């Protein structure tokens, strides 16, 4: 199957980053789609956790919010929100956090708080939610975001959640024992932090995408690894699984839009 959209490629490449052994704290939107495609394809026993308290959930459609009833109905168990953040996240029981964001910088720090000055923002974004502690307390972090100059910026106005900070060993210097962002999956390519500097570096390029296209869509002079591989195209199974869950989701979220 050769026809697929960049967003489909992004979601499938993100799904492939996950394994059966992962215990994954799932962000809403693209991360949620990726995590559920992983569960429905190569990682049927992955444990998915949403911050609303649902642990080991297996939704049939993608939730619109982090607390849709579907998540609770299909969970192994559901805990109160303080327990979720205290015992399970801060307790170090979660191997992988999967985040998205409005803006990211070259060290994988994320901004979901404000564009412009905090006191007089040009754009007020929703805020951090669970992200600041997901970023520091999960074993490692995957990030998925479409590559664009608006999103991949040279300097963040605000660090909502720390990735590799100023690069190098900044995380260790702050006492963090977790790995932080280890992969950023975009619609054009996959980035990983350089082992020493921690600057995000292109390691895999999706089918039909050029180096120039990647450079043009990034807000800083983006680096390419010495060896860059081609991202394998989606398989028929991967693509069908993603399209099926998207179709079920669209159908489920339609309704009369009735007012209260």
């Amino acid at each position, binding site marked *: 199957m050769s026809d697929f959209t960049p967003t489909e490629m992004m979601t499938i490449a993100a799904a492939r980053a996950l394994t059966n052994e992962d215990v994954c704290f799932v962000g*809403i*939107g693209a991360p949620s789609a990726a995590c559920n495609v992983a569960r429905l394809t190569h990682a049927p026993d992955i444990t998915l956790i949403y*911050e*609303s*308290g*649902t642990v080991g959930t297996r939704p049939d459609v993608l*939730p*619109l*919010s*982090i*607390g*849709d*009833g579907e*998540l*609770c109905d299909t969970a192994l168990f*559901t805990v*109160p*929100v*303080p327990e*979720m*953040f*205290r015992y399970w*996240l*801060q307790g170090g029981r979660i191997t992988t956090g999967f985040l998205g964001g409005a803006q990211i910088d070259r060290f994988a720090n994320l901004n979901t*708080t404000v564009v412009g000055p*905090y*006191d007089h*923002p040009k*754009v*007020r*974004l*929703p*805020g*951090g*939610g*669970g*992200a*600041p*502690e997901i970023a*520091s307390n999960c074993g490692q972090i995957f990030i998925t975001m479409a590559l664009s100059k608006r999103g991949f910026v040279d300097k963040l106005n*605000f*660090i*909502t*959640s*720390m990735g590799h*900070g100023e690069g190098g060993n*900044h*995380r260790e210097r*702050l*006492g*963090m024992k977790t790995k932080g962002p280890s992969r950023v999956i975009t619609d054009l390519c996959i980035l990983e932090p350089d082992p020493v500097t921690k600057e995000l570096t292109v390691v895999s390029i999706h089918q039909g995408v050029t180096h120039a296209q990647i450079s043009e869509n990034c807000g800083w002079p983006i680096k390419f690894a010495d060896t860059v591989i081609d991202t394998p195209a989606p398989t028929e199974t991967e693509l069908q699984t993603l399209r099926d869950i998207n179709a079920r989701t669209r159908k*489920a*979220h*339609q*309704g*009369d*839009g*009735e*007012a*209260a």
Partner: protein
Amino acid sequence: MARLTSLAEAISENVRDGDTVAMEGFTHLIPYAAGHEVIRQGKKDLFLIRMTPDILYDQLIGAGAARGMKFSWGGNPGVGSLHRFRDAVENQWPRPLEIEEHSHAAMANAYEAGAANLPFAMLRGYIGADLPKVNPNIKQVTCPFTGEVLAAVPAIRPDVTIIHALKADRKGNVLLEGIVGVQKEAVLGAKRSIVTVEEIVDDLNAPSPNSVILPSWAVTAVVAVPGGAFPSYAHGYYPRSNAFYIAWDEIARDRDTFQAWIEDNIMQAGPEDFARHAKKAA
């Protein structure tokens, strides 16, 4: 002992102008009917508290009921921005909004500290993040045993907490299940509390000895408002109306459309209008 009363009385007796008010519900069981009564009664200068202020707080902010808000994630989940919240922060309309912003982990810990009658909560949080630079209520404490430096935030002790639950018995004992969020902590940390429920029954018939129950003596007022969580949902009663959350984006985008919606659906309506959403799920 909780007083079983009407929604109008519960709000007028327990919510005062200028109060700090927490209306909790983590996506599930959001107390929409009670929030609408707060708007209908013209309460003002409220300092709102909530982890995930979504459409209900967009309505309260746009209606001019709020002077400030303490929160950790303010959006329309899965849809996008809260336009009334953004208009207040970006353009001070209909009035300026003082904000105190935290992370979910900090808010959850702060509610728990409030319920536990402690002055502050501590957590391994905010490491490398910018929020402590703009929120003076995020400080640091040093562990007296290990020397580790941890984040500290003040306990949340609202004047009044309002939640929606599944059912109550005639004594006012309240049961909730499913995604239970921070509701129990928010009620136990508050001076006064109002719980709206889907139904009042003779016997709670708690499904498990570990069910989440708020006993009558820990609650101030209990009110039956079937459908009172719509367009959020009540586990086992009715599903979340994701279609309404999507539709809200258009309603809230424009000030005039928003105000017309408030007039038709809140000012000219009442709690009984929620009942049609309460048909039991099969």
